[in-house]
């Protein structure tokens, strides 16, 4: 069974050999190579050793409490012999490791959050119907979403195909060559795949997470992957994956419904569902998620995300939700990607600006876009400066970077 396609191909046997009988690991491992990264992680978790996950491109000075000398320093532990991957998976499921991860630092310095295997694998589905899946691995492995996908695939001994940060042609080539069945990625990743050229029928499940998506994107994904069910996932560094997706809504599972509150539209999460971190601030044991939601059916725990609290842009006293404007821009034919942000301005406080990336073969002007938006949005929500860009800057976790 193939475990991972990257620059080389690794089988589950390769993985077993790398882990079984080894008595050393890296508690803080910095590497760009996926196979040694995963092997080290599984080795640590199966042996219940503590582990800190750091980005391949990060410096110790960028994160609190980490010394450069700790990085890639080997540590010994009591070696364990495993006869099969089933034994490794079983050991991992029972792990008592403390797993430290960092937020991607989009809003300042990365914050440290400590998790247990149970918060990280809360939503992993196991069983025969999950066997034989081939996953496009489209996330950074050191962050929550990448861990979610990894554990789902690994515990079912599925195949992973690394496509994180790859170009469009390469992603499509991998989907065809490896007959990928499952893709879980950010909306930004899927937008890279636009426009529709031909259908890819091997893909039966498409999951979007990490950012807001929009109808235009759903429609395009539906064309590109006609056999796929499309769903959403909500996972945060603080809490892992919490909700099941229902169309464009999320549902809070019944057994944990009392662990959530909504105050001023903001979703509050009870601390029992979170990892632990000194950076968390609680009000009566509830954590402010910063996600603004609206109830679709409060009785059933059904809600929709509106925006991030700190993302609202104040333009001359009006509050603009950049996600709403981005959706309107991306609904225009020929637009692949849009990023809306405020630029400090002495008259209005902020001027609304947009960076727009067009699909090949389309020529739109700033005026075209403004005219289009004026039929959809109130005047104050229309960006006053629209720049056309060749590429968008992405964060470490593959989301659009808000400056």
């Amino acid at each position: 069974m193939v475990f991972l396609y990257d620059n080389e191909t690794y089988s589950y046997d390769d993985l077993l050999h790398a882990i079984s009988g080894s008595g050393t690991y890296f508690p803080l491992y910095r590497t760009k190579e996926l196979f040694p990264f995963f092997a080290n992680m599984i080795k640590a978790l199966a042996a219940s050793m503590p582990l800190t996950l750091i980005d391949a491109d990060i410096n110790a000075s960028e994160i609190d409490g980490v010394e450069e000398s700790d990085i890639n320093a080997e540590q010994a532990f009591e070696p364990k012999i495993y006869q099969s991957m089933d034994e490794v998976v079983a050991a991992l499921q029972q792990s008592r490791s403390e797993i430290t991860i960092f937020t991607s630092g989009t809003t300042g310095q990365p914050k440290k959050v400590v998790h247990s295997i149970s918060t990280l694998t809360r939503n992993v589905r196991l069983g025969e119907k999950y066997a034989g899946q081939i996953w496009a691995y489209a996330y950074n492995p050191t962050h929550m979403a990448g861990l979610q996908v990894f554990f789902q695939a690994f515990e079912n001994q599925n195949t992973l195909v690394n496509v994180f940060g790859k170009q469009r042609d390469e992603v499509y080539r991998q989907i065809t060559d490896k007959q990928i069945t499952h893709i879980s990625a950010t909306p930004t990743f899927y937008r890279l795949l636009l426009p529709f050229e031909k259908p890819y029928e091997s893909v039966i499940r498409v999951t979007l997470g990490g950012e807001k998506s929009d109808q235009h994107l759903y429609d395009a994904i539906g064309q590109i992957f006609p056999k796929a069910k499309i769903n959403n996932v909500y996972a945060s560094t603080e809490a892992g994956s919490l909700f099941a997706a229902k169309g464009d809504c999320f549902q809070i599972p019944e057994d944990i419904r009392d662990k959530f509150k909504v105050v001023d539209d903001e979703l509050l999460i009870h601390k029992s569902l979170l990892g632990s971190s000194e950076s968390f601030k609680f009000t009566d044991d509830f954590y402010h998620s910063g996600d603004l939601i609206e109830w679709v059916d409060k009785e059933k725990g059904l809600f929709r995300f509106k925006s991030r609290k700190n993302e609202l842009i104040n333009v001359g006293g009006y509050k603009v939700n950049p996600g709403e404007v981005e959706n309107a821009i991306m609904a225009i034919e020929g637009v692949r990607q849009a990023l809306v942000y405020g630029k400090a301005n002495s008259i209005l406080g902020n001027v609304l600006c947009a960076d727009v990336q067009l699909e090949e073969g389309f020529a739109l002007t700033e005026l075209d876009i403004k005219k289009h938006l004026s039929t959809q949005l109130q005047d104050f929500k229309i960006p006053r400066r629209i720049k056309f860009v060749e590429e968008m800057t992405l964060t470490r976790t593959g989301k659009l970077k808000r400056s």
Partner: protein
Amino acid sequence: MNTKVLEIINEIRAAKGLAPIESVNNETKLREDLAFTSFDLAELTVKIEDEFDIDIFEDGLVSTIGEIYAKLA
């Protein structure tokens, strides 16, 4: 410089569905003569800043074209 400023003014007017103006002079008033709102003025500042790297409204209000030219000179 003057052509560029006129170009920006007409871009802003076009988005509002207003006809382009052919010329401006030092006395042209931004609000009264060009029908600019504070949102339009903000756009004007941003675009002039993009072009000339100067925030024309940084130290107080500017109400005529002549005052803009003075800042850019």
